[in-house]
């Protein structure tokens, strides 16, 4: 009798183990993309359009990655589920807008829709967003850490900060959407094989990749980057080793915030600026972070690319408004099958 029970359980356990494996999750995601592709093809959508969407998906993934990497770092190093991360992206976009208003308007650079002044604004806005994050940490999170508040309370404080930041944006810029360059034409060009994208989007992709490379170098090559990874691994050990946790916290916010700011500016350049844009991005960001395993910056990049691609390709046959909904579906699939994400260890989180 008991042997029968035991074999049945073993099968059940085995099935669970297979379903929860890394390969199964990757296969599931691949299947999802292929299924979408087939669905689109069945509706008679030309392959060229799908390829264009794929390229755009990679670009969107790049933007999301800028947000997701910082979110994952803050999650991993500081143990804060930063629900204000989306609004930090928004803040970056609007701070760049503010900087633009002080700069003389230059001619568009080459095929792009923007001039040198946007690059200046980018350089100005990024550290400001980092500083914003660090300021909130000093005023709010540091106190909560001292009180040994659980992550949920941190999350709630982050939510409060998110609404605070957004209220300031509403106050300064109002609720309507704006463009960095109102009325400037942004024609798409043909890359090759009929793939059409806007030059701006290529720039965004290039910039996102460049920043990701920078972050990689920072995390792998610099002392502070290594200390951040060490703190994410084991904060207690980092402390007794003598790592200056205060400066790790500072740099985590500066880097995470700076990347978020850049992501917001890129998103604003691609679409338009809205006070709610960061909130809408929050769900895809979290989905990317969980898909790529919390605390793993490279995982966040992979997760962001997957979600960007699926989001864009889904627009071939789905109302584009449902983009964040697609991210939600991926999130639920990951939570169902492999909550620790692609790069996580089983049992760990």
């Amino acid at each position, binding site marked *: 009798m008991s042997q029968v029970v035991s074999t049945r359980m073993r099968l059940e356990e085995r099935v669970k183990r297979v379903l929860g494996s890394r390969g199964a999750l990757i296969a599931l995601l691949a299947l999802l993309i292929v299924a979408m592709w087939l669905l689109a093809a069945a509706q008679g959508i030309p392959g060229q359009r799908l390829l264009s969407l794929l390229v755009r998906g990679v670009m969107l993934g790049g933007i999301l990655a800028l947000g997701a990497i910082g979110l994952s770092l803050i999650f991993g190093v500081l143990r804060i589920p930063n629900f204000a991360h989306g609004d930090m992206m928004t803040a970056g976009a609007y701070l760049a807008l503010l900087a633009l208003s002080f700069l003389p308007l230059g001619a568009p650079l080459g095929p792009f829709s923007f001039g040198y002044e946007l690059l200046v604004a980018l350089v100005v806005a990024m550290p400001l967003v980092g500083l914003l994050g660090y300021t909130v940490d000093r005023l709010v999170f540091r106190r909560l850490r001292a009180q040994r508040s659980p992550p949920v309370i941190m999350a709630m404080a982050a939510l409060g900060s998110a609404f605070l930041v957004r209220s300031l944006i509403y106050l300064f810029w109002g609720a309507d959407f704006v463009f960095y360059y109102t009325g400037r034409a942004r024609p798409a060009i043909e890359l090759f094989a009929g793939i059409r994208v806007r030059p701006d989007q290529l720039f965004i992709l290039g910039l996102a990749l460049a920043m990701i490379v920078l972050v990689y170098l920072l995390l792998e090559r610099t002392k502070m980057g290594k200390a951040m*990874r*060490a703190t994410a691994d084991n904060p207690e050990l980092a402390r*007794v*080793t*003598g790592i*200056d946790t205060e400066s790790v916290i500072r740099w985590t916010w500066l880097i995470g915030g700076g990347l978020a700011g850049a992501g917001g500016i890129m998103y604003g350049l691609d679409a338009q600026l809205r006070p709610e844009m960061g909130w809408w991005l929050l769900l895809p960001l979290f989905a990317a972070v969980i898909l790529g395993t919390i605390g793993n910056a490279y995982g966040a990049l992979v997760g962001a690319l997957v979600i960007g691609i699926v989001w864009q390709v889904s627009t071939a046959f789905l109302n584009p408004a449902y983009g964040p909904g697609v991210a939600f579906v991926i999130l639920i699939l990951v939570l169902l099958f492999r909550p620790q994400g692609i790069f996580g260890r089983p049992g760990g989180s």
Partner: protein
Amino acid sequence: MALLTIEGLTTGYGEMEVLRSVSLHVEQGEIVSIIGPNGAGKSTAMKAAFGLLKPWQGSVRFGEREIGGLAADKIVRLGMCYVPQTDNVFPSLTVEENLEMGAFVLDGAIGPRKERVYALFPRLAERRRQRAGKMSGGERQMVAMGRALMLDPKLLLLDEPSAGLAPLLVDMIFERIRDINDSGVSVLMVEQNAKKSLELAHRAFVLVNGENRMDGTGAALLADPEVGRLFLGG
């Protein structure tokens, strides 16, 4: 003057008192071992020595400086490093990066220090690019000790360096501890493995139920049948 002096230390976690008026000291150049049955408060004594627990009563002094409750990075700068019993490496960092983290408080070049650690643990030199999380228990212990040695401390605190290791590795680790001591580093260690640690230690303190029970030279305690009785309650 003693390197580390603990006097009449009473402390614990939350409301639970673990140590009652414990005193011990480490002189320059010594290996001192704290032994005692499970639950005697050995690891707690170690944590208190490193300033991780605030003394309720009594004092912890490093040299002449009172360090009870001082921040860890300050203590590390004074020249005392601590190797916890478990979770004592950064698993996603490579061996080399783990060592670099040990020297975080230093600003200058740390190449020579790394080479010194590699000389002590050639095994680590072979695997310097490997992630610490993928290493065996003995190798991890070496990484952890090597990391603590990066600062060239005056005093090294080791919490059960042999826990969970196979006998051969235990011998190896104890030999390394002797090497470390020979290079001029004083060592305070907590050990489950009483026999081996008494053989190694110049002096030892026996804690039972959070109180000092016996102390003396390693050899004297080794010869004392009372110690065995304390452990197995015979």
